């Protein structure tokens, strides 16, 4: 097995790891250089490659998790972007809660993908001209129900390429997701269009040094913990958002002793992140990631953020301790202004951190008016922290177990997600996790603080992608929006679920090929499937099928004792 490098460019540090199979050969850490992201990354890369034994030399694969897309969106660095929308009837387009300039166009597609209103080419031209004149540099095109019929989006793309090449390429909504959700598709496509230029520039820079470092295939980590080929990322950069948290979860999966049905709590300074594992796999968001407050269709791991961390504000009214959600900055022990949960831990001797005297004095001042000595107050703070975290974890499971289901059999079966163990991560985890585990009545494990966990997660991941197949035998038509694929159904009367499954697998294999991957059909799974008899005027006129297929997610297990070396 050839060697593989994983690099996670984090907010503070850039971590890198050199893997061979399940062994960690070397880990490297360097401060992230925000002025020049590439400089830090190249330094890490150079050090890792230097650790490669002579006989292993040759092209080395690289898995990169960067904050490029996330930061570009959160900091609003993307270019000004407008969206040409084909809203059709329904919720008024003026009421869509999307943060982009919208140019509405005539035309409509209905829920079965039939055109119920034609596109007006002259209107499209006028809209593009208006967007250009208003200074928009990137365009996305999104129609309602475009995953069912994307001909309008394709026609607009062709028009822009032919008549406004300076505005090309445009992002088309249907290619990014086959799921139905017009507002999320608008946001996803617009964000993608706004950062496409930044991504293209990044890809050029990486490609430029590829030979110098003798790199093999290069992949970027995505929000769902899978990877995306570097070249393809130019078209789908939006999928690389939130790769940091994904790398962290992948690292957890690669390193944890046992996951099965675990709940993971990553305790940070300001917030804590709750993730859920079921049957050893991390749960994913039902619709897609939310970034900077905007819901998207980008596949992502499920996580819920809780305004509770080591630096949270602590208040005490004589009976009740309240913590968070505000952060008040570093703990008093480290020179901060106000009492934090970390100070309570320091006073209890749980962490040798900063000035214990200062922390103790601050707790003394807080407790004295109520006759509470510092250690007693500290215990109260830690208990309140644990109760709040435990309540949030219970709420997450209640939310998951109340997710709506649409069949009788699912209601009867019930969803019984229950955590069987608690896994803690993050700086303050060691002290709080046992208390939270006690509160929840769960066995717990604190993952040793591992600088390279994110980099290991990036390296341990592999390509993932999903396609949507919609077939309608009454209309004798099938589409795979992600692939621009439209075909007639030649024999509608013999087209059945088995045919639909085969077609979905075939399309997924083809997609993989297009991206330069060799994937066997046995590695593809159907994740969703629906088939409905269509009856009109008491006669069966056909069936419609909705399927989703994906490459089975897999992760490389990393031996922890080696990782610590």
């Amino acid at each position, binding site marked *: 097995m050839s060697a593989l490098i994983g690099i996670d460019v984090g907010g503070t540090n850039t971590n890198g790891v050199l893997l061979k199979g399940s062994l960690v050969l070397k880990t490297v850490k360097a401060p992230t250089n925000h002025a020049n992201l590439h400089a830090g990354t190249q330094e890490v890369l150079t050090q890792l490659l230097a650790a490669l034994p002579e006989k292993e030399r040759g092209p080395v694969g690289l898995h990169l998790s960067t904050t490029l897309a996330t930061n570009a969106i959160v900091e609003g660095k993307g270019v000004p972007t407008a969206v040409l929308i084909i809203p059709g009837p329904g919720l008024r387009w003026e*009421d869509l809660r999307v943060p982009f300039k919208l140019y509405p166009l005539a035309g409509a597609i209905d*829920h079965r993908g039939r055109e119920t209103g034609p596109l007006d080419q002259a209107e499209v031209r006028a809209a593009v001209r208006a967007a250009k004149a208003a200074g928009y540099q990137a365009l996305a095109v999104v129609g309602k129900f475009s995953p069912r019929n994307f001909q309008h989006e394709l026609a607009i793309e062709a028009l822009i390429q032919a008549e406004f090449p300076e505005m090309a390429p445009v992002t088309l909504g249907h290619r990014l997701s086959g799921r139905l959700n*017009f507002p999320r598709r608008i946001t996803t496509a617009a964000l993608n269009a706004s950062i496409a230029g930044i991504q293209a520039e990044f890809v050029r820079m990486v490609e430029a040094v590829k030979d110098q470092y003798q790199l093999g295939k290069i992949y970027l980590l995505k929000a769902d913990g899978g990877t995306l080929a570097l070249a393809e990322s130019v078209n789908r950069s939006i999928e690389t958002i939130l790769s940091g948290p994904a790398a962290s979860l992948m690292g957890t999966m690669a390193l944890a002793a046992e996951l099965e049905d675990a709940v993971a709590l990553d305790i940070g300074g300001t917030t804590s992140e709750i993730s859920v594992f079921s049957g050893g796999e991390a749960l994913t968001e039902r619709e897609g990631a939310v970034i900077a407050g905007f819901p998207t269709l980008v596949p992502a791991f499920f996580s819920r953020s809780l305004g509770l961390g080591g630096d949270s504000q602590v208040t005490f009214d004589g009976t009740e301790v309240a913590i968070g959600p505000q952060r008040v900055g570093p703990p008093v022990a480290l020179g901060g202004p106000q009492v934090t949960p970390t100070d309570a831990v320091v006073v209890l001797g749980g962490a040798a951190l900063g000035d214990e005297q200062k922390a103790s004095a601050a707790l003394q001042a807080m407790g004295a008016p109520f006759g509470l000595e510092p250690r007693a107050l500290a215990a109260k703070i830690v208990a309140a922290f644990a109760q709040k975290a435990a309540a949030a974890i219970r709420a997450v499971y209640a939310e998951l177990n109340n997710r709506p289901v649409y069949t009788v059999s699912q209601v009867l079966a019930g969803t019984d997600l229950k955590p069987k163990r608690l896994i803690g991560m993050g700086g303050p985890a060691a002290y709080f996790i046992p208390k939270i585990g006690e509160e929840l009545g769960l066995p717990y494990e604190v993952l040793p603080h591992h600088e390279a966990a994110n980099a290991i997660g990036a390296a341990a991941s592999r390509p993932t992608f999903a396609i949507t197949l919609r077939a309608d035998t009454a209309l004798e038509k099938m589409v795979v929006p992600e692939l621009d694929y439209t075909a007639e159904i030649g024999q509608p009367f013999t087209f059945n679920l088995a045919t639909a499954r085969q077609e979905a697998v075939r399309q997924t294999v083809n997609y993989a090929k297009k991206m330069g991957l060799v994937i066997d059909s046995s590695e593809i799974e159907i994740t969703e499937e629906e088939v409905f008899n269509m009856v009109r005027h008491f006669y069966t006129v056909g069936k419609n099928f909705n399927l989703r297929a994906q490459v089975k997610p897999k992760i490389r297990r990393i031996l922890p004792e080696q990782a610590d070396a």
Partner: protein
Amino acid sequence: METKTKLGLVFFPAFDWAIAPDHPEREERLLYTRDQIREEGLLDLPEIAEFRPQIATRQEIERAQICVPSVEKVCTESHLIAAGGTITAGDLVVSGQTERAFALLRPPGHHALRIVHGSRGFCTINIEAVMVEYLRQRRNGRLRVAIVDTDAHHADGTQDIYYNDPDVLHISIHQDGRTLYPGTGAVNELGGPGAYGLTLNVPLPPGSGDAELLYAVEHLVLPVLRDFQPDLIINAAGQDNHFTDPITNMNVTAQGYARLTELLAPDLVVLEGGYSIEGALPYVNVGIILALAGLDYSGVREPELPPAAKKAGRVHDAVVKNVAFLQEVWAKRKETDLAAVFGRDDYFRRKRHLYYDTDDIHEVQVEEIKLCTQCSGYRKIHSYAEDRRRKQAQIAAVLLPWHACGACQQQAAEAFEQLCAEPEWDDVYFQNPADLKQPLVSRARRGKR
């Protein structure tokens, strides 16, 4: 500050249940509605939250209805989930979790009568009644409810259950019964002796559209609701008045439904019928959801509107006349000489023939209501049913109303014991919705089953 969620949506399309594969009440019915709701992104709106339905218990069903021979024998799980989901919706509103709720689920229930021998008009369990009885029990019977049924078919089941109940106002607006199943729902059906005038029926001539429906709402329903002052307004929202519906002859549009919802401002909406699953339901449901959530619904329209909708304006004479008649009934309901309507005996008797179209069952029912000055009076029902295989069922039931007076309670108990001693009944039932643990007692006769 966080504001309360406006609309709780209990969506349950029962994608794995059908009466029969090509029956209108089949798996596909809410598929396109699901697609439209998802594509519009409605579930991401902060005004709207989705909830999973609960499963109704036997007691919850038996507080509202009497299933012959038992709940288990006439219900599928899907019926229990539809009734349970409606309870979930009711709970959201009464507990204050959401301002309003919409039980968008199937199968429907408004043709299901007090006594249930099987399925009629695609309905087995009256989901509105199960929910209302659940909520009343939680409030110890102190709940005044108005049900406004706007399905194209007369809500004969709900009317039957509440026609002698002084705390439940039932108004049904529907296509004239002389032209459509189930045939009832004439203007002169006005309720029993204990609740005279609290059953109102507005038949609309075939071809009626938004103008007629909204006229009845504005000129009759809204003033009556203002008078009645209910704690809870429920709209049983059938969507088969739509101009594309295959089994009715009406002309209502999605805009008409949305406007109706806005005017009525119901606390709860419950889906009933509606079988134009592609042309109507996706648009009507989005219109209702937006109106309930207080959002602009003016952009909701069908791909093609009916030619008649364009010249809307003049309201059909028959509707104006019926509304005028009912306005007068309502105004004078308290002065009406009930003896002239229900007789001067101790009991008011009626005999009806009832037909179960879905299951092909014929039933003859004889009912006696005690004319009581202290409460709405206990009831006695004899029911003789025969299905198409000539299998017969003969049952008797004694029903106590909420807030039954002492005399009625005693007489009802005696009547029950007497019926149990009579040899001809397969089962004898005693229903008391106020009984917390056991709202229905049944005695199966040995050797009969």
